[in-house]
């Protein structure tokens, strides 16, 4: 199993290299799909094993896959499967419309797979320094993906994204240096960056230094996780990136960054007690919900609408993690999975709407259900899933998080969070209704969404609905994963 845990990131990398060598073709695009399916399968196998036998450790502790890592690998696999299956037709259309060149498509195929590989490395290492390097590398891999279209808006978005994300991640590096410093002074020869060792020596780490590190880590990885007030790059980057990349960035990159933050939280909590990180995370969680709710109300652009909805969902994940009880953390992790599926589908569908209408303005899209019934249904259902309507799984996870908040006697914060969720709910519902219902206006292309794309998106929505009813065999993995963060 150590082989699987160590070499899984090579799978997307190989698919990427194939595209780099042979260019964007049907075969290399399908290789990416197969690779993503391989990552998902790898996540399932690792999950099954670590639940029974505990963490898989390899390469002298560089690689360590426990239940939480396996769960994240699964999320990465599922979202990249949706994204890569959709990208097959998407890039073909971009090429046909002249939005990109064969050279651009080749670069796209290479960078997306490097991006996925970096996320896999970030979640399957024990070394917080390697986590940091991998998170920083995702910024580099996605920089040109955000700027894929080379329009003024795309250049602006990618510049802001690289500058803000790099500064944020540099500040996280300061936090890692401080943790390393604390471990160095814990006892002679104890200097380490390994998460499991830091956790084991938590009692000996200096609290004042750890408190400084906590602040730096929240600012740093919070920036990449899209938490307010460090979120300013997110709506621009996620709305300008090509749809399959938006799906990956919104669906999983935010969660992977939050995962790294959660790993640090475990160590910091063991040193300082739970109150310090709880208060900070509740603050950024509620602020994220507030920012998202207020900007969703009068939103005019449907890709930005989805981006702000990601800030909302990450705020909720931060809120659940902050509460810290096993139920709350399980709810937050469950929410990550539900969000990964629903947001990937919604962004992929938004790419089709953009092809169809040629604009991202909500006001210019009318009567989608009548004009493009299949696409309209998929987009509408994805929005409902994001809103947390049963039977979709985000309903169950939102209920779990709010219930856990009540059980932890955080009633006031719970009511505030629920109120902000309601504002976001009404806003998205209203904007979605305008786009889907009514009489079609404006010219429309005769483009048909490829069957493979529609089928993938429909299956993903079905999976989200099934997950909302029963977790099935995932239940044990989710419980084990939440025990890592809430011991």
């Amino acid at each position, binding site marked *: 199993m150590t082989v699987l845990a160590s070499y899984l990131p090579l799978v997307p990398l190989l698919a990427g290299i194939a595209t780099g060598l042979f260019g964007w073709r049907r075969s290399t695009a399908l290789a990416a799909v197969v690779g993503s399916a391989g990552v998902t399968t790898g996540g399932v196998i690792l999950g099954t094993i670590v639940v029974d036998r505990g963490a898989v450790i390899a390469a002298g502790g560089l690689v360590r896959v426990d239940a939480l890592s396996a769960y994240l690998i699964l999320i990465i696999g599922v979202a990249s499967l949706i994204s890569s299956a959709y990208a097959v037709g998407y890039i073909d259309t971009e090429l046909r419309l002249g939005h990109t060149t064969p050279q651009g498509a080749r670069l796209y195929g290479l960078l997306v797979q490097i991006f996925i590989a970096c996320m896999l490395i970030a979640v399957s290492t024990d070394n917080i320094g390697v986590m*940091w390097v991998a998170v920083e590398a995702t*910024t*580099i891999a996605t920089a040109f993906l955000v700027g894929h279209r080379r329009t003024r808006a795309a250049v602006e978005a990618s*510049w802001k994204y*690289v500058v803000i994300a790099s*500064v944020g991640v*540099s500040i996280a590096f300061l936090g890692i240096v401080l943790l390393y410093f604390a471990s160095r002074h814990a006892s002679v020869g104890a200097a380490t960056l390994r998460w499991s060792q830091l956790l084991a020596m938590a009692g000996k780490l200096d609290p004042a230094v750890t408190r400084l590190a906590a602040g730096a880590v929240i600012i740093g990885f919070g920036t990449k996780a899209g938490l307010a007030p460090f979120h300013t790059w997110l709506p621009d980057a996620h709305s300008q990136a090509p749809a399959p990349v938006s799906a990956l960035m919104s669906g999983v990159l935010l969660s992977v960054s939050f995962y790294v933050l959660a790993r640090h939280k475990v160590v910091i909590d063991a040193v300082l007690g739970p109150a310090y990180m709880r208060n900070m995370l509740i603050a950024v969680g509620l602020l994220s919900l507030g920012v998202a709710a207020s900007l969703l109300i009068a939103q005019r652009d449907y890709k930005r609408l989805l981006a702000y909805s990601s800030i909302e969902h990450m705020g909720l994940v931060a809120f659940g993690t902050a509460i810290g009880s096993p139920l709350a953390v399980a709810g937050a992790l469950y929410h990550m999975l539900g969000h990964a599926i629903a947001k990937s589908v919604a962004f992929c569908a938004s790419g089709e709407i953009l092809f169809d209408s040629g604009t991202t303005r909500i006001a210019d899209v009318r009567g989608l259900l009548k004009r493009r019934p299949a696409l309209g249904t998929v987009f509408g259902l994805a929005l409902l899933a994001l809103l947390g309507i049963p039977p979709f799984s985000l309903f169950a996870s939102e209920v779990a998080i709010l219930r856990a908040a009540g059980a932890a006697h955080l009633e006031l914060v719970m009511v505030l969070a629920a109120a902000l969720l309601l504002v976001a709910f009404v806003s998205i519902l209203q904007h979605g209704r305008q786009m889907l219902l009514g009489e079609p206006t404006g010219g429309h292309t005769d483009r048909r969404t490829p069957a493979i794309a529609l089928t993938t998106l429909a299956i993903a929505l079905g999976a989200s609905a099934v997950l909302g009813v029963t977790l099935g065999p995932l239940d044990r993995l989710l419980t084990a994963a939440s025990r890592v963060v809430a011991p």
Partner: protein
Amino acid sequence: MTDSALSQLLGLAIGTALVCAYVVLWRSRLISIVRAIAVQGAAVAVVALTLGLHEHSVEPVAAAVGVFALKAVIIPMLLARWIRQSEELREVDPLINIPASLLAGGLLTLFVYATARQVANLGSDSASRAVPAAIAIVMLGLLVMTIRRKAVTQVAGFLLLENGIALVAFLTTSGLPLLIELGGALDLLLVVLVLHVLAGRMVSAFGATDLNQLQELRD
């Protein structure tokens, strides 16, 4: 190396690094800013080298060689070429003018010196006594990124921030494991290259790298 020689050499290198941060704030000619960044990178390398020789360990010495190659040679050369190509030689209208930004930088440094020691006790040897200066460089980097509006000066601010953090790492821990240092250095180089390409695209889309023009995306 004796303790007094160590603290003198460290003091000299850190002082140089801090002065370089002020030179970045003070000069408006972009090429002077790049030279200051290069000197600062060399100063960071001297700090790593001094600590490595003092502790008789190889890792900081190896890191020093890497830091010198990357931060004093490769990145400054890239930036200098970038300036020659873009024909933008000066920072034309910073958000606040140069005397005011020097004043702001001075106040920031005083603030860091006054508060840093009280927040956490990072040790009492001559290396960790210099940490406030390193944190001041981080803050000056953030200041430069906020008030300067050219692509090159943004990158210069980012490099100040990076150098400051590298100094904190060397002074408190004599550097992180080489693997992480290597990964970090590679990431830094790639970020600078990516920003270089993006700045090129900015010129072809907006006609200049004036960040005040980045106004298309808003709610």
